[in-house]
């Protein structure tokens, strides 16, 4: 049902986006290309950067300028936004994964079928680990399929009512990389939801506790004490999805190839470690509780 809701949401969103977009006219395209050429020339003169050295992610200045000065004709649906659109829908995709996992984790408790299940397979650790595997597979599969549908639907929208002018050649690959990162984070958040559903023995408990913690607790903590953002689950997820570290704004500024940079508070690799820690700690706790508690 959640999958069907996701498909409907994608279709509706793409119809609205397409209705609000239009194919650029030949004049618009010509203007955009002329402007792009001017910008490219300025960029190659080093006027986009403090020095003529390319930024860290680019091998040459030309490579950087091709991206920075790509033509951008007036249209709401541009293929060059594909990876960005995928990343920005990541929150909904991850929440969908959480809802699926909480349902999978809480269904047996809500229906009372856990008793039946344990009279067939009394090895509780095996039962919970199997469920964890199911959560990872189902959440990953559902979120990947939905994001592939989103990417496909966006492509159709672009073909009918948008433009692919100025799209980097590896944009689709970047979009799918983002989709895989989002699915991985969704599966990890799903395991957290499964763990809470197992401890709380209910889908509602899992959703309530998780959303309460993520939205209220982490949000409030991060607001009051920004320095501990490197230990929070949501921040770790957002760093992984966006591939953008969180910088320590209170630290000393350094200059790398003429670009000022704050020290990194939570890097991409550290974000994976934080995420893994939460998953392992909560699944471990769920295993202990599930093994020890009576099933009445």
């Amino acid at each position: 049902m959640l999958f069907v809701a996701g498909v409907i949401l994608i279709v509706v969103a793409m119809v609205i986006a397409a209705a609000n977009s239009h194919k650029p006219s030949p004049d618009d395209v010509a203007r955009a290309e002329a402007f792009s050429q001017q910008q490219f020339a300025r960029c190659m003169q080093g006027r986009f950067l403090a020095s003529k050295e390319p930024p860290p992610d680019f091998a040459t200045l030309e490579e950087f300028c091709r991206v920075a000065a790509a033509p951008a004709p007036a249209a709401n649906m541009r293929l060059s936004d594909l990876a960005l659109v995928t990343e920005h829908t990541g929150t909904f995709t991850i929440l969908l994964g959480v809802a699926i996992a909480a349902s999978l984790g809480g269904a047996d408790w809500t229906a009372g079928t856990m008793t039946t299940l344990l009279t067939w397979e009394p090895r509780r650790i095996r039962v919970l680990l199997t469920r964890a595997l199911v959560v990872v597979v189902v959440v990953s599969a559902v979120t990947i399929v939905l994001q592939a549908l989103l990417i496909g639907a966006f492509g159709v929208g672009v073909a009918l009512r948008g433009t692919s002018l100025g799209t980097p050649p590896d944009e689709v690959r970047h979009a799918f990389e983002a989709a895989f990162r989002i699915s991985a984070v969704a599966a990890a958040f799903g395991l957290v939801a499964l763990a809470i559903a197992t401890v709380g023995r209910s889908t509602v408990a899992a959703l309530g506790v998780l959303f309460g913690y993520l939205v209220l607790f982490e949000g409030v903590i991060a607001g009051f004490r920004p320095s501990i953002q490197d230990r929070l689950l949501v921040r770790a997820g957002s760093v992984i999805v966006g591939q953008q570290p969180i910088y320590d704004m209170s630290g000393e500024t350094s200059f790398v190839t003429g670009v000022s940079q704050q020290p990194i508070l939570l890097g991409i690799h550290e974000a994976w470690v934080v995420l893994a820690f939460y998953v392992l700690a909560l699944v471990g706790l769920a295993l202990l509780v599930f093994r020890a508690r009576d099933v009445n």
Partner: protein
Amino acid sequence: MGVIEIEGLRKEFRRLRGGRTVAVAGLDLEVPEGGVFGFLGPNGAGKTTTIRCLLGLVRPDSGDVRLLGTDVTRGLPHVIGKVGSIVEQPALFPRFSGRRNLEILGRIDGRGAREIDMVLQRVGLMERAKDLVKTYSLGMKQRLGIAAALLKDPSVLVLDEPANGLDPAGIVEVRELIRSLGDEGRTVFVSSHILSEVQQTADRVAILARGRLIKAGPVHEVLAAGRARGMLVRVSDPDAGVRALAAADLDATIDGGVLRVDVQPADGERVSRALVAADLYPSELRADEVDLETVFLELTKDEGLAP
């Protein structure tokens, strides 16, 4: 060696507002192989807790529980494949069909379509197998639960209140099914508080009250523990009947317009003769049989459970 052996089983539950409730207080029980074993007791006697301990759902505070010779706390996974069970209401996925529910369970133990067809046939649910469980009556859900328990082709069946909520026809169906399972040589351990049902089904019974075993043994032995009731006689003039029986050295009392005569049913002829001699012809003469309910109430009277 019994199929089920319980020694000194004790289980307490913490109350939310402090204190503890003793659900099972040092229970000893042995269930022999084959036949139907009735596990009786009023609500709250500890039947379901005992069953949950037996199936590894609840951890005992102390005591030993062995199933098919295996210690449940350590070796349950080795024997669970031979044990089918229903604990309280059979819990099934309401949005799946009966067949789908059995398929899901069957996959755990490698049971296929042939076994599922067999158990559906056996419990009479073949025609409704494709319908969603939420459309089933309580009796059908109960039968589906029994089908799920039978899917493993178990040598031991543990059924907790299988006739709960069933209509009279459903009760008869379940009773016949349980009896036939016992006759096949399986051990059916069935808990119930519907004593008349157990009396008609079980070979042996155990009576539990306040978490303790009150009485256990073959049904006829447990019934014999109840005090003898003599015979019931209906005559047109009960007072004259009492006098006629007293003249023949037979004690009788009037109970609701019927004579209750303190005599063994085998001596019924003496009663007839005494009454006929006084020109009183009995319109009804029958043994005042002791049933399990009566015995149960007598045995649990000291526990403060009988009304």
